[in-house]
C-alpha cells in the first residue's frame, strides 16, 4: 500500500517565558492510503501538536526546528501560507474535539457546510447549497432540508459533531485528522459517530489520523496504532500487535491501567507524572516512571527496535543483551493470547495492514 503521508524526524519547540519547550522530539510515522492510524498518549505527549503541524495550524510561538512532512511527496513544512490555504479543508481536513466551539454560532449550518465547496470547488450558491444538503443527509442529520437554516445552538452535541464531519468531508479530503472527536460525547452518541466515520471512510476512501486517549475507541477504529510519550512515538504496530503483543512498558501501563469488565483487586497505575519538556531527561524519558528501567535507560535514548515488519518499539528491553522481564499479569495474558493465535495461523490483523 502506498504512503500518502510521511512524517520524518519532526522536531517542534515552543518559545515560552520559562524557555524552549521541546514538545516534539523526533517523530517518524507514515500514513497509508485508506487506513486509520490512531495516535494515543497522555495530555502533553505531543499528539495534537503533531497533527496540527501537518495542518500548519501551530501557534505563533511554535517552531518546526527540523523534519519533513511529506504529503504525496511534497513537503508541507516548506509550503507558503497561501499554498496551505489551498490544502486545508480540501486535501487535508480536520475534526476537532469540541463540537460546541468549532462551529460559527452566528452563521446557519447550511452556509457553513457550503463554505468549503464555494471556496475550494468554485461552486455557485445553488450548487453548493444542494451539495451541502446531500452531505448533511449523508451524515444522518434528520430533517436536513429544513434544519439547514438553523444555527449551531439549535443542535445537540452529537448532531453538531455530525455537521462538523459533513464540513470536513465536503471536498472528499485525502486525509482526515480527527482530534478526540468523540471525547465530549456520551457513549451511545460516541458509538454512532464512530460508526458514521467508518461508513464514510469506506465510501470516499479517506485516510484517517485519529487522536484519542480512550483505548476502547482505538481498538474499535484503528488499523494501526502509534503510542506517544513525551514528544516521541515509543511504539507503533497494527492494532492487534499493540493490544495483544505490546512491548513497551509505557504501553503496558496504559493497557493495564484501564479496567476491563473482569479487573479485580487494585488497578495498575503508572506511578508519577510525565516529564517536564522544558528540560527533557537524559536517556529514556519514561525511565523515572518505569518499573523495568535499567541503568542504560538513564544514559542513552533507546532506538526503535523491530519486532515485526509492522511493529516497532523504543525500549532497551528489546536489546539482545537485556534481561528477560515479566510484564504485568494482564499484559502477559494478552501476549499468551497473541502467541496462541499466531501459532494457530489465525490472521494477525484482520483489516490491518500486515
Amino acid at each position, binding site marked *: 500500500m502506498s504512503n500518502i503521508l510521511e512524517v520524518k524526524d519532526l522536531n517542534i519547540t515552543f518559545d515560552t517565558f520559562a524557555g524552549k519547550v521541546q514538545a516534539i522530539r523526533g517523530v517518524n510515522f507514515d500514513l497509508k492510503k485508506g487506513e486509520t492510524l490512531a495516535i494515543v498518549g*497522555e*495530555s502533553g505527549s505531543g499528539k495534537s501538536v503533531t497533527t496540527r503541524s501537518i495542518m500548519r495550524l501551530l501557534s505563533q510561538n511554535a517552531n518546526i526546528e527540523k523534519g519533513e512532512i511529506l504529503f504525496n511527496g511534497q513537503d508541507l513544512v516548506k509550503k507558503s501560507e497561501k499554498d496551505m490555504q489551498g490544502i486545508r479543508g480540501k486535501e487535508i481536513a480536520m475534526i476537532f474535539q469540541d463540537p460546541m466551539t468549532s462551529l460559527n454560532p452566528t452563521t446557519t449550518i447550511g452556509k457553513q457546510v457550503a463554505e468549503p465547496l464555494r471556496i475550494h470547488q468554485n461552486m455557485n450558491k445553488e450548487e453548493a447549497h444542494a451539495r451541502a444538503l446531500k452531505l448533511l443527509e449523508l451524515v444522518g442529520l434528520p430533517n436536513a432540508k429544513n434544519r439547514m437554516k438553523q444555527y449551531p445552538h439549535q443542535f445537540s*452535541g452529537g448532531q453538531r459533531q455530525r455537521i462538523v464531519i459533513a464540513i470536513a468531508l465536503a471536498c472528499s479530503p485525502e486525509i482526515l485528522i480527527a482530534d478526540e472527536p468523540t471525547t465530549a460525547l*456520551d*457513549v*451511545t*452518541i*460516541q*458509538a454512532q459517530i*464512530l*460508526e458514521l466515520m467508518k461508513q464514510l471512510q469506506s465510501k470516499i476512501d479517506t485516510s484517517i489520523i485519529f487522536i484519542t*486517549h*480512550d*483505548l*476502547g*475507541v*482505538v*481498538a*474499535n477504529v484503528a488499523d494501526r496504532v502509534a503510542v506517544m510519550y513525551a514528544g516521541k512515538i515509543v511504539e507503533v504496530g497494527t*492494532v*492487534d500487535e499493540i*493490544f*495483544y503483543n505490546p512491548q513497551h512498558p509505557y504501553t503496558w*501501563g*496504559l*493497557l493495564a*491501567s*484501564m*479496567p*476491563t*469488565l473482569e*479487573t479485580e483487586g*487494585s*488497578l*495498575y*497505575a*503508572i*506511578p508519577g*507524572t510525565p516529564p517536564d519538556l522544558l528540560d527533557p531527561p537524559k536517556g529514556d524519558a519514561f525511565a523515572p516512571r518505569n518499573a523495568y528501567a535499567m541503568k542504560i535507560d538513564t544514559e542513552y535514548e533507546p532506538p526503535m527496535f523491530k519486532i515485526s515488519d509492522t511493529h516497532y518499539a523504543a525500549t532497551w528491553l528489546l536489546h539482545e543483551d537485556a534481561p528477560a522481564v515479566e510484564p504485568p499479569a494482564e499484559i502477559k495474558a494478552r501476549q499468551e493470547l497473541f502467541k496462541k493465535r499466531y501459532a494457530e495461523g489465525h490472521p494477525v490483523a*484482520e*483489516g490491518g495492514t500486515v
Partner: protein
Amino acid sequence: MADNREKILEVKHLKQYFNAGTKNEVRAVDDVSFDIYKGETFGLVGESGSGKSTTGRSIIRLYDPTDGEIDFEGTKVHNISGKKDMLQFRRDMQMIFQDPYASLNPKMKIRDIIAEGIDIHGLASSQAERNKRVNELLELVGLNPDHATRYPHEFSGGQRQRIGIARALAVKPKFIVADEPISALDVSIQAQVVNLLMELQKSQGLTFLFIAHDLSMVKYISDRIGVMNAGKLLELAPAEDVYNRPLHSYTESLLSAVPLPDPEYERSRRRTQYVPRQANGEEEKMREIVPGHFVYCRESEVEALKQKEAAYHK
C-alpha cells in the same frame, strides 16, 4: 446481604423540577428512590441530562427538591435548619468535583484551600495544629507536604484532584459525593486517583456516591450501581449483576455502546438501540426481580424479567 446492613442515606421519591409550573419545566429527576449502605460505593451512571448529577447535588443540599425526601442517618436533609445542625451536616457530607481546574480557588494557597473546612468547623486549636493536619492530609493523598505553600496553577490535573480530595477529607466526613471525579484526567492518572479513593474508603471508613459516565471504571469501583435515564432510575443492582445480567433494555443498550480495549471484541460488538416504550396506562415503578436487583417496569412484565434473569444463570 443488603438487609442486615445499616443504611446511611435514603432517597425517597425525589423529584427535582426546574422552572416548575412554567412551560419550560424540566423534570431533571422524576421520582427516584434508592438507599445507600454504610461503607459501600454506590455508582450512579447515565448519559448527560439523565439527572445523575442533579441527584447528587440534591443529596448534598445544593438544591431544594420539588418533592420527596432525603434522609441522612435518619435526619431529613432538607429539614435541617439552624446554623449548628447545618454545620454538622456539611461536615458529615462532602463533595469532590469533576473539574480540578475550576474547583480550586486560584488565589489561595493549597494549605488554606485544604484548611478552609478545618477553620470553619474549628477543628484546630492552634496554627501549628492546623499546619500539622494539612501536612497529614497532603501525605494521605500522596502529595508532598512541602507543596502546601504553592498555588493551584502549579499542579497538574491529577495533583489538583488529590488536593480536592484532601479538602473533602479535612473535616472527617462520613459520606462523599464524587461527581465525575476522574473524567477530566488522563488514563494513567485516572487509575492513580481511583486507587487512592478505594484506599481512603477502607482506611477512613467512608461511604461514596460515585457519579460517572465511564461504565468500566464505575463497575470497577462500585458495590452497587443505579442506571439513570431521562430523570428516572431504571435499574439498580450489585455491580456484577448490572454488567453481567442487565435486565432493562436501556442498560443493555448502554453496555453495548461501550468500546473495550480489545480489538477482537470490538470487531464482533453489535450495538443495540434503546427505544423508550409508549405509556399504556399501567403503573411503572421499581420492582425487585430477584433479591437486590430492581428494575423500573410494569407489573405485567415481572414474570418475563424473572425468566430473563434465570436464563443468565443457565
